């Protein structure tokens, strides 16, 4: 059993130890337990409403791109209508028409939601410990992207030159005046009438249009260390998000604030807190203190990869037994982080001209390559296919499964220990650090040894901690992707289902259904003296 039936004690733990040592979890940073549990609780609630397939929190990164694209599309129309010679007037004329007001509202809401999505995405990465080690560059580039996005938003607020835009310009200029950038304080420009001219608004417009290009470059950097980066969310979420924003802009149009007035004290200015969240602080402390606050927050955020990481553990990168590497390049193809490259003519392999090489600085230690390697010669230390076979053998010797028993392999980051076996039911449980790392030979060995069925409870495919674990597992078991589950294995006795940590009941129901289905198949045949590792050597090494 993975756990007893007392669900009240089943809060997911960040430091769970697997029942079998070889299938280890990658450690989370110290203190990640509480944030991680909080994250799981929120995810769990959203999963109950939207299901893990459509949980928008799982796709906040791609959703931010979805909203950004909507912002860009509406921005083109607004750009054509905008006049630098009459900023507020042109926006007011635009806003006076239904279509123009709608486009402006969509633009604003989409821009707001972009920041929301980016912020939640960053928070999720932080809370789940995905901001250090090989992911440090993604964290840093993501923060810079957020900074550029905010800058772009500020220029957008200033463009309209309403009371909010005036405040943003004035307080922003007061901070800029502290920096050795301008020969004279520029904040004066925003306190006097008839000083701000067309050139200022032209430059502001230029920045507002050019900054998204910077975001594009930063996005490329942000995803440069992942393979098959997901640019947009699944269609349902993508179009659902767009429809929601388009409808929102019809139902609740964004009102246009009064025009900027340098001779009025700001009263009841409608602040867009997603971009102008700092204005209340700016108006209550000196520019120096305000700049100091920005500096402290920036330093804390940018140093996350250094202080929010395990102190005693390190990621165990995969290693390749080059002598036995066949050069098939499957691990290279499957690696979700582009950490593996194929090197020609430098390896010690007698089987191939090229061998796989793992970049330990990029490898997250997910072990997905272990599941991809037919000869079982790649994987993190102690977690290769061969190691998994040893674990399985030990497990079977200790647990003596019966032919009608179901063995559950839950992903530690999915329902994991949260999975609760039905009361009174007899299940075996062997947690894994990532379903995508489970080698099909281990599954085959279990089934041929007489286990009634193997149920793999993966994490939700749309929130895999290692991006592509469930995807590759499904491909290997059902679609003959290397290293495929051999045809001789009865696939009726294997089932894969994805569940989030907050879906233990659904997972339990799925396992129970699988048990019932297995019982109809009769007892599984039991083989003795299975030599899968020997077969592997004969097939890949000895020829």
């Amino acid at each position, binding site marked *: 059993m993975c756990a007893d039936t007392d669900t009240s004690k089943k809060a997911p733990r960040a430091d769970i130890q697997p029942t079998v040592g070889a299938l280890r979890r990658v450690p989370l940073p110290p203190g990640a337990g509480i944030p991680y549990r909080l994250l799981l609780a929120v995810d769990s609630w959203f999963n109950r*409403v939207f299901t893990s397939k459509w949980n928008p929190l799982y796709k906040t990164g791609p959703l931010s791109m979805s909203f950004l694209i909507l912002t860009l599309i509406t921005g083109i129309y607004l750009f054509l209508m905008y006049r630098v010679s009459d900023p507020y007037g042109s926006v007011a004329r635009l806003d006076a028409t239904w279509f123009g007001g709608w486009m402006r509202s969509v633009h604003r809401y989409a821009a707001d939601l972009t920041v929301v999505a980016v912020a939640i995405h960053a928070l999720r990465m932080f809370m789940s410990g995905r901001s250090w080690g090989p992911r440090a560059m993604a964290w840093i580039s993501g923060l810079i992207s957020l900074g550029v996005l905010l800058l772009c938003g500020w220029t957008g607020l200033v463009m309209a030159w309403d009371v909010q835009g005036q405040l943003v310009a004035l307080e922003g200029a007061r901070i800029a005046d502290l920096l050795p950038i301008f020969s004279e304080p520029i904040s004066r420009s925003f306190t006097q009438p008839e000083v701000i001219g067309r050139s200022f608004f032209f430059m502001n417009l230029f920045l507002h249009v050019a900054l998204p290009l910077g975001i594009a470059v930063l996005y490329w950097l942000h995803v440069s260390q992942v393979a098959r980066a997901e640019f947009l969310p699944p269609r349902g979420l993508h179009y659902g998000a767009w429809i929601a924003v388009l409808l929102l802009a019809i139902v609740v149009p964004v009102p246009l604030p009064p025009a900027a007035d340098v*001779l009025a004290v700001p009263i009841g200015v409608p602040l867009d807190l997603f971009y102008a969240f700092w204005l209340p602080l700016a108006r209550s402390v000196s520019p120096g203190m305000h700049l100091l606050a920005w500096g402290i927050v920036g330093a804390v955020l940018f140093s996350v990869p250094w202080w929010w990481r395990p102190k005693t553990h390190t990621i165990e990168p995969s290693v390749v037994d080059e002598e036995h590497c066949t050069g098939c390049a499957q691990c290279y193809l499957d690696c979700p982080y582009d950490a593996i490259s194929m090197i020609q003519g430098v390896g010690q392999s007698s089987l191939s001209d090229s061998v796989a090489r793992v970049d330990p600085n990029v490898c997250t230690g997910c072990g997905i390559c272990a599941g991809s390697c037919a000869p079982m010669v790649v994987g993190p230390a102690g977690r290769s296919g061969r190691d998994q076979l040893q674990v399985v053998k030990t497990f079977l010797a200790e647990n003596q499964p019966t032919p009608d028993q179901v063995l559950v392999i839950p992903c530690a980051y999915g329902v994991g220990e949260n999975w609760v076996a039905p009361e009174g039911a007899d299940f075996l449980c062997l947690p894994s650090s990532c379903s995508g790392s489970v080698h099909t030979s281990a599954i085959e060995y279990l089934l041929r040894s007489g286990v009634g069925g193997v149920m793999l409870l993966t994490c939700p495919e749309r929130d895999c901690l290692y991006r592509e674990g469930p995807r590759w597992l499904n491909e290997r078991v059902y679609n003959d992707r290397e290293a495929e589950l051999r045809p001789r294995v009865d696939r009726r006795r294997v089932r894969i289902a994805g569940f989030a940590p907050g879906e233990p009941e659904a997972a339990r129901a799925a396992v129970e259904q699988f048990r019932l289905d297995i019982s109809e198949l009769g007892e599984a045949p039991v083989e003795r003296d299975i030599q899968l590792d020997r077969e592997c050597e004969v097939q890949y090494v000895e020829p």
Partner: protein
Amino acid sequence: MSSPSAGWLVWPLRVLVTAALLAVVVVAGQVPFGRASGEAVVRLALRSVNTQLEVCRERTEEELAALPVHMRRATVCEGVAPTYRLTLRVDGEQVLTAAADAGGVRGDRPLIVDHEVRTEPGRRRLQVEMVPLELPGMDAASLEAWTDLPRYHLDQTVDLVADKITLVLLDQEDGLLKVYEPTGEASRQVSINPRPSSVPGSTSSPTVS
């Protein structure tokens, strides 16, 4: 709450949750900021150039002899920027006094002043003065140069409006301090002073010494 995946409430619940989340976005995107204080604000936003005086002296024979022939200029001059003192009186009461220095490491950049003072609204007499402070140990020539430095005075009665800003600016072209008054609700249409001396309460036109 059980999983809604099989219930008929699924879609209404999803729509409701989505609407609630979007409502948060709407509200957080338009949070009213800034409250009326009932006070009037006087903003002094001045930019003055030519606030540097040139102090010259004759080199001694020994100094000249120590220099290469092509560098033996008898008179050496250096720019010195005195500190200016800015004062604001409202109805005769001093409400602001501040020192202002020209910008730049060598003080050769414009002198810029940006101060805001809150006061009671109503018809008030504003007196603004910005004058250079004396430099220690000035000789006669320096004193003459110092005397020629621009000095700014304004003495004018204006209507200070609650929650509005009365702006005092320095006109770069004629070197006069001028007042931009908020004119009620239509404060964007500013009036430019100096007012004629016949305006009640106005004691003098802005002057430059």
